[in-house]
């Protein structure tokens, strides 16, 4: 079996003449955690929407298990989406449904399950995995930010996907909750053998959990490799990104120093 589950080649996407992706090329290894780092507006979310077929690129190829997503027909896209879970930045839980109904949603609507006992068992198992065994009856509005992300992950995992896409999984969470989400991603990857593709600007988390780290800048992957190698990269844009992320006010401080001088 090919070790690359998702192979993206020379992907281009623009909106209203403005290029967002300008030749993204990256291979995602099976059963590994890949983190794509990048500033806001670097094209990370657009990349995900292209992967799952919600948007079509102008140029390039996306091979999922050897089949080109770009050329897939509707039925093939539906079949592919059954293999892919998606955790949205704000979890995107359906607020008119309870947590349990949210987790059951893809089972009923995507897989066509009708056996209530089987659905309840799967929902219960997923909520156990993400650490929300008692929250099935609650509505999303009753959950904290971290709990919503966990519930969103339970929904993304419900269909036993081969790959889960995480859109900024720790954004807006405090460091303790962020760490717990990182641990959860590791658990999902190691215990369930799910390939995890994460887009984030959380450098600490990236180097902590990733098997592969990539740096997306202005629509291109500028650096990629194992965390240790990437951390020592001499790529000037990536070094600047690391510096700014470590000290976000660097530019302002520098300006202040100049001003004082």
């Amino acid at each position: 079996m090919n070790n690359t589950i998702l192979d993206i080649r020379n992907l281009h996407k623009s909106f209203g003449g403005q290029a967002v992706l300008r030749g993204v090329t990256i291979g995602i290894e099976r059963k590994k955690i890949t983190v794509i780092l990048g500033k806001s507006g670097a094209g990370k979310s657009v990349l995900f929407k292209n992967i799952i077929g919600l948007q079509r690129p102008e140029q390039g190829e996306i091979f999922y298990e050897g089949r080109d997503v770009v050329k897939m027909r509707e039925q093939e896209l539906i079949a592919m989406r059954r293999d892919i879970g998606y955790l949205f930045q704000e979890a995107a839980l359906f607020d008119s449904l309870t947590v349990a109904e949210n987790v059951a949603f893809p089972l009923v609507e995507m897989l066509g399950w009708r056996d209530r006992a089987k659905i309840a068992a799967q929902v219960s198992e997923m909520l156990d995995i993400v650490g929300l065994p008692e929250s099935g009856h609650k509505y999303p509005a009753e959950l904290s930010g971290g709990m919503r992300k966990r519930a969103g992950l339970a929904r993304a995992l419900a269909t036993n996907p081969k790959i889960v896409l995480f859109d900024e999984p720790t954004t807006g969470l405090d460091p303790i909750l962020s760490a717990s989400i990182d641990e959860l991603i590791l658990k999902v990857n190691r215990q369930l053998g799910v390939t995890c593709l994460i887009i984030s600007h959380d450098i600490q988390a990236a180097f902590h959990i990733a098997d592969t780290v990539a740096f997306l800048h202005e629509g291109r992957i500028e650096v990629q490799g194992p965390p240790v190698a990437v951390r020592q990269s001499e790529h000037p844009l990536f070094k600047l990104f690391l510096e700014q992320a470590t000290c976000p006010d660097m530019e302002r401080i520098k300006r202040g120093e100049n001003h004082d001088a």
Partner: protein
Amino acid sequence: MFRIVAVINEHLATTGKFALFLVATLGWLFRRPFRLRLILDHMEKIGVNSLLIISLSSITVGMIFSLQVTYIMRIFRGETFVGAMMGITMGRELAPVMTALMLIAKNGSAMAAELGTMKVTEQIAAMETMAVSPIHYLVVPRLIASVFVYPALTGLANILGVIGSYFVAVVLEGVDAARYLDRLYFWVDPKDVYSGLIKAAVFGVIVTLVSCFYGLTARQGAKGVGISTTKAVVTSSVSVLVADYILSDILITLLYKNA
């Protein structure tokens, strides 16, 4: 000048998007699964939960109509025709239009706001990633429910409007009850009632499609949802009135002129 061109372009673009939305909805309308439970849920939300507001408004309209018309008709000694006038007017025009306008205020706005909120909080995108069409899951059940519920509530409005009218004309204004009812039975034709019910079903389709369209095209957070909801209410209301004229013309030609 450029601003006028930009506004025209924007409206043309919206019309084009609505046409595509309409085609997509028709494409999904007869595809499985049919989601009977969702259809029944929406029938309850749109229908059962609107019983009070439709009852109150139709009784009130019937009473006001009767009060005004009895006064005018009495000048010509024709006050016993109030029942007939009420039955025909309510059946053909007042009940379907009033019911549609009340349901726009209560349900059309709620549909646009709910779907708009789902859009801006990525719930719609989440649905798409799970290979579920938002049109199939969100629009089609509402549309089917509306086609049944709008005529049902219009039928109720017909009955309650006439009851309100009877109360004012007979009990308060002293019109002879037997003559009131006799004129009502003689002049009101079943065609008057079912032409109104046909209109109601069409209004249900218009309101649901317009409200869902604006909901699903909402952008830019809470402000965008507010703008979409306003557009949904205004466009639905105007569309219902324009459609009412066109339908009246068609139905009069089909049911009365050729009869």
